[in-house]
């Protein structure tokens, strides 16, 4: 059960600053729980950002990214009200998509 991301999109000049807080355990597969058992790897492997439907970021992530990561991209040529959609998929095929409108900075 994926929790919602928290996304801010602020326009500065003609560049939209997109900052995303992602709630995800990002388990590396190396950590042991309190009982001493290995915790299975569980991490986001695909992260995408679209700007008015057009892909602007398509990244492959790994266990190296921290728990509850902060992720930021800047989109050139953006305007107030543009739709930015952020999606991730993890290795257990959990998915989450959230969208936000670009606000004046």
């Amino acid at each position, binding site marked *: 059960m994926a*929790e*919602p991301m*928290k996304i801010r999109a602020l326009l500065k000049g003609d560049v939209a600053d997109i*900052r995303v*807080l992602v*709630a995800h*355990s990002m388990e590396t597969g190396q*950590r042991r*729980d*309190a009982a001493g058992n290995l*915790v299975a790897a569980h991490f986001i492997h695909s992260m995408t950002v679209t700007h008015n439907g057009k892909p602007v970021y398509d990244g492959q992530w790994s266990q190296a990214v921290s*728990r*509850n990561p*902060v992720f*930021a991209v800047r989109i050139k040529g953006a305007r107030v009200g543009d739709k930015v959609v952020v999606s991730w998929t993890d290795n257990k095929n959990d998915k989450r998509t959230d969208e936000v409108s670009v606000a004046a900075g």
Partner: protein
Amino acid sequence: MNLSSRAAAICAFALALATGSGPVTAQSKPEDGLALGRKMLAEDNPGDLWVERGQRLFTAKRGPKNASLEKCDLGMGPGVVKGAFAQLPRYFADTDKVQDLESRLLTCMVELQGFKREDIIRTRFGTLDRDSDMEALVSYVGAASNGLRMNVRLTHAKEREMYKAGEYAFYRRSGPLDFACVTCHGESGKRIRLQDLPNMTKAEEMREVVATGWPAYRGTHSTVRTMQHRLYDCFWQMRLPDLGFASDLSVALTAYLNYSANGGEIKLPGVRR
């Protein structure tokens, strides 16, 4: 320190090396770096995720009684969260006790939602394997007072009693190390390794640490910790017996701290190492 002054400092350093002259005085203090790092973290505080989760938990029907916390009276009337953090701890007639935010939420979760007190206390601190509902709820209620100022009142006799007890505990040396809270928090500019210690005998530092300190997202814990956890951890560092969650002693210390911070502008959750 801005970039140009940093560049100037580096130039001055290089010059001093080259000419072999005089001691270098343009060194920055470790606290400056700490403040800068904290500012950078605060811009994207993962604690905001706990605030949102706390809001969902607060309004969701949960527990054996399938009830939300929207009838929970945190001192501002049933379900009112705005301003609640600013005036806690306070006396509640229904429990005949002075309660802080955590102990009041505990009462609501037991009375309204039917959770078992022991279960809530056992899961009070989140781990990497399990999130804590309490930490999320405290984040939500705390953030709802953002922009307001701490305004704890000592009108009821029990509130004054708790404040006095908290003040006494703050200054009393105890345990094998003979430590009091004030041993670490009575001087400005002191650190444990790189963590600066707020001087809580100074009103200004007290206001800041209470109003913008806890609940806070702790990077090294990957979760939000509350004032109850901070006090629990301080007690462990002082090698005292474990501080009971929502115990009278923990509420007394919180009453002393929060009252002393009156006037501090609330900005929560904080962000810490």
